[in-house]
């Protein structure tokens, strides 16, 4: 399956301090951490390259201060990177004029913020319609469109409420409706659920997955919560001190962490929820009695009950539905109880 690259950034630097550009040039475009400290500069994002594929959920995960928020603001050009290139659908974002950028944001981008960033003086309906209002769309059209979006996020009946009258989860639904009202291709979510209670957070994650199954946007999702990243992501970029430690699928991250830092994160993750059958199957399908067939993309946790209950192993299918290997209860139990696989 070949996918088109939607957003491509190469060698992004964001440095804070006096004359960051000169500082970068003086150190041959590759200053070391020591040089940063010596010059009293802060490298919020250092030499970062990321490619986001069309239609995928790309999660950038890092603790506070890791530079993930700065990186996403460089990708949307809310802040100017010190150096690097950002290509959106093949056009360099950083070379666009102010007018081109405004036009692009109006039609192609949407963003959801951690603290909702709703306008306090506008009602739910007006907030959701606001991106269309500033484009000069007439009231009837934009409010009809906003109503649709409000319905999509499940807030119908609250159109005339003001943000302060809503709970946090409801406010973020408005934020989501607002960011989607222009039907953007690229959807940025900056820690959208971090300010919510754990229970609501869970609910909103499900809601988010449901929306994505309907809309198929290209998504850049920022979070500091590794569980959330695992749950939502197609691919995850783990960031630390302005540098990306590893970019991989949740499964790869857990099975093959590239650095000790990533391993620290993955250690407590229940493997069964991440590891898929095709990773633990024994290759080849010898002729024998099988209990049934299971898709290779199924996680171990999902398959566990069936596999354990059956007396015979299962066939594991690839995406085309062809049997690739087998999995027996022993392998599943290994993963479930965390026994080292050999």
């Amino acid at each position, binding site marked *: 399956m070949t996918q088109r690259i939607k957003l491509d950034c190469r060698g992004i630097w964001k440095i804070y301090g006096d004359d960051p550009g000169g500082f970068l040039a003086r150190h041959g475009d590759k200053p070391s951490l020591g040089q940063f400290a010596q010059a009293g500069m802060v490298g919020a994002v250092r030499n970062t390259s990321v490619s986001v594929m069309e239609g995928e959920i790309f999660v950038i995960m890092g603790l506070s201060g890791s530079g993930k928020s700065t990186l996403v603001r460089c990708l949307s050009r809310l802040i100017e990177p010190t150096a690097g290139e950002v290509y959106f659908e093949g056009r360099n974002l950083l070379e666009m004029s102010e007018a081109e950028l405004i036009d692009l944001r*109006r039609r192609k981008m949407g963003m959801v*913020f951690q603290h909702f960033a709703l306008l306090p003086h506008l009602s739910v309906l007006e907030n959701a319609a*606001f*991106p269309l209002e*500033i484009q000069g769309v007439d009231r009837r059209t934009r409010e009809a469109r906003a109503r649709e979006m409000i319905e999509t996020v499940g807030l119908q009946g609250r159109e005339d409420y003001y943000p302060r009258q809503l709970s946090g989860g409801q406010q973020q639904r408005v934020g989501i409706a607002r960011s989607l009202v222009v039907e953007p291709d690229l959807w*940025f979510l900056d820690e959208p659920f971090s300010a919510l209670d754990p229970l609501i957070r869970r609910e909103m994650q499900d809601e988010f997955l449901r929306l994505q199954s309907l809309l198929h946007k290209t998504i850049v999702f920022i979070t500091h919560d590794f569980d959330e990243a695992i749950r939502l992501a197609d691919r995850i970029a783990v960031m630390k001190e302005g540098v990306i430690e590893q970019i991989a699928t949740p499964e790869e991250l857990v099975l093959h962490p590239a650095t000790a830092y990533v391993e620290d994160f993955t250690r407590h993750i229940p493997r069964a929820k991440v590891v898929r059958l095709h990773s633990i199957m024994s290759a080849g399908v010898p002729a024998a009695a099988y209990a049934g067939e299971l898709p290779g993309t199924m996680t171990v946790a999902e398959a566990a009950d069936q596999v354990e209950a059956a007396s015979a192993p299962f066939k594991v299918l690839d995406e085309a539905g062809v049997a690739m290997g087998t999995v027996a209860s022993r392998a599943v139990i290994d993963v479930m109880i965390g026994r080292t696989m050999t």
Partner: protein
Amino acid sequence: MSGTAGQGEAVSLPMPTQAQDKARKRGWLFWLLLFVTTWGFSQWSFALYKALDARWIIRFPKQYELQLDTVISRLMSWLVEEASFGWFTFQQFTRFLSALVEAPYDWVRSLLIDGFSTGIGQQAVQQVPPLSWIAVIVMAMAIAAYARNARLALLAGGCFLYLALFGQWESAMVTLASVAIAVPIGVGGGLLLGILSYRVPVAERILRPLLDLMQTVPVFAYLVPILFLFGFGPVSALVATVIYAMPPMVRVSTVALKSVPEDIIEAGRMMGCTQRQLLWKVCIPTAMPSLMVGVNQVIMLSLNMVIIASMIGAGGLGYDVLTALRRLDIGGGIEAGLAIVVMAIALDRVSQAFATRNVRQRFIKGVPYHQRHPLLSTVLLVLLLTTVLGQFLPFVQSYPDDYTLSTSRYWAAGMEWINVNFFDQLEAVKTVLLTVLLLPVKRFFGGIPWAWGIIAMGLIGWRIGGWRLALMCTLMTFFLAWNGLWAKSMVTVYLCAVSVLLASVIGIPLGVWAGQSARANSIIGTVIDTLQTLPSFVYLIPVVMLFRVGDFSAMIAVVLYALAPAVRYAAHGIRSIDTEMIEAGKVSGCTSRQLLWRIKFPLATPSLLLGLNQTIMLALSMLVITALVGTRDLGQEVYIALTKANTGQGIIAGLSVAFIAIMADRIVAALARRSQQRLGLE
């Protein structure tokens, strides 16, 4: 790893505390030495001058005095008489400005008082009558109802009805007309300047010292040049009012715009707002509640200034108070004063209600216009009815004089009764405070030789804020002496010091009490809120009547006026202490007294200092006004300049007051900052 760090700390801990201890002791020694030296100089400066026959010790040598006032006066007359921009003169320019302000003012005045007429002088024929008193009252109620609810409408209606009932209607409408013109100019100009300094950092850096000056130069000082440029009359008063009332709006706008949350701005940008859309559709609506606080301030300051500006021809309620004071007409003064109070309360409550207004009627289709906008249609209906009926029934047009109530006689009688029966008690209080507090402090400050004063201020500045503050204090103090105003400055400083001391002694305990008890807070809060809405002029009335003229009367008026911030900041400081700190104290077994002295006071110090700062500022601004009741300080100098129309003298004395205010502000602010840092609150 963490273990070794912990050990390192444990070893090095005692060292800094010892050093701190030493520093603290040295600090005390410095302040003690400074005080003792100053006291010594102050005590023996006169003897020193006699012994050495060196008059320069107590008086800045006359031949070296800076004759800045004559220079400024000459510059002023040059501006008025000769200056020219080429194809128009400076005077034409100011006339043009006058006309620009006068046209809307005349219109509002016609609307409220005179009615619209054609023809001039005797031939004038009234074409359209002014708004009837009933219509104005209904409008006030409608605005209040729109801003909040029926209760506020009743308050506003009651206040305006009072004005009609007690025969203050016409004066009140003159005052209201001035406020109605000054406020939009002040708010609009302030907002634009605020936006400018939000957008352009350079503009902010230029504006900030200008605003500092505008807010600290006493009002009387710029009345003189304004009088020169715009002549005696309402226009001058309006210009002065705008200058006085605009600075807070500039500051509030800048701060309000800066405190719009970053993510809201980012959201606006991500939606593709242009710069202009971002400002007018995102930032300003988001900042609206804070901006309305600024509007409230502009309204109250305008009212305050319109009252004061009656001295240069604003007329209205202020003029009534002024003439009553001059005639010592006790009853009339109190009556006009009460009318000001009533108006201040109405304006303040209604404009505050706008700041917190949040109910909004939604657009509903298919409902007739008058049902969708009940308030507006009521007002229009009443307007129409009263205008038509007013043609036939005079009492609808204007409140009949025969039915006005006058309380003036009772007030006069009441005051007389107090003065007759309590004369001895009042006199005793006055005498005790004078001998115990005022005179010793006056002697202390009055005796300080100017040279030592400059050095001492430099030392204080250096000790508290480093060499920059030291330089500023030295130069500003030198300015006072150089212009031959040392003695008067010291009178100002003494009166200010005594008043601030008394205001703090009274205000801080009240504030602490209000901070600890909700019931006390509701009572004290209401009283303080009301005190703070009153125009400064009003405070003079009862004080003069009870204590006649002099330093003591001035001090009482200043204390009353400057009390509010001391109370407010103390209450705020106590209330904003983290409850965990107080719980920690209780768990450790503090008595409530220990809790107050060991925990609450230290933690509230920054807040108390900020309150002190505000108290000093208010005290200084009030001191200038108390020149009217006969003080012999810088305020009197400004006031004399005003009566003699001496521009230079007025500006120099005004600048001197401003410099004292700025020094006090910077020193106290530096103290507050330091205590915040020490508590880790920044």
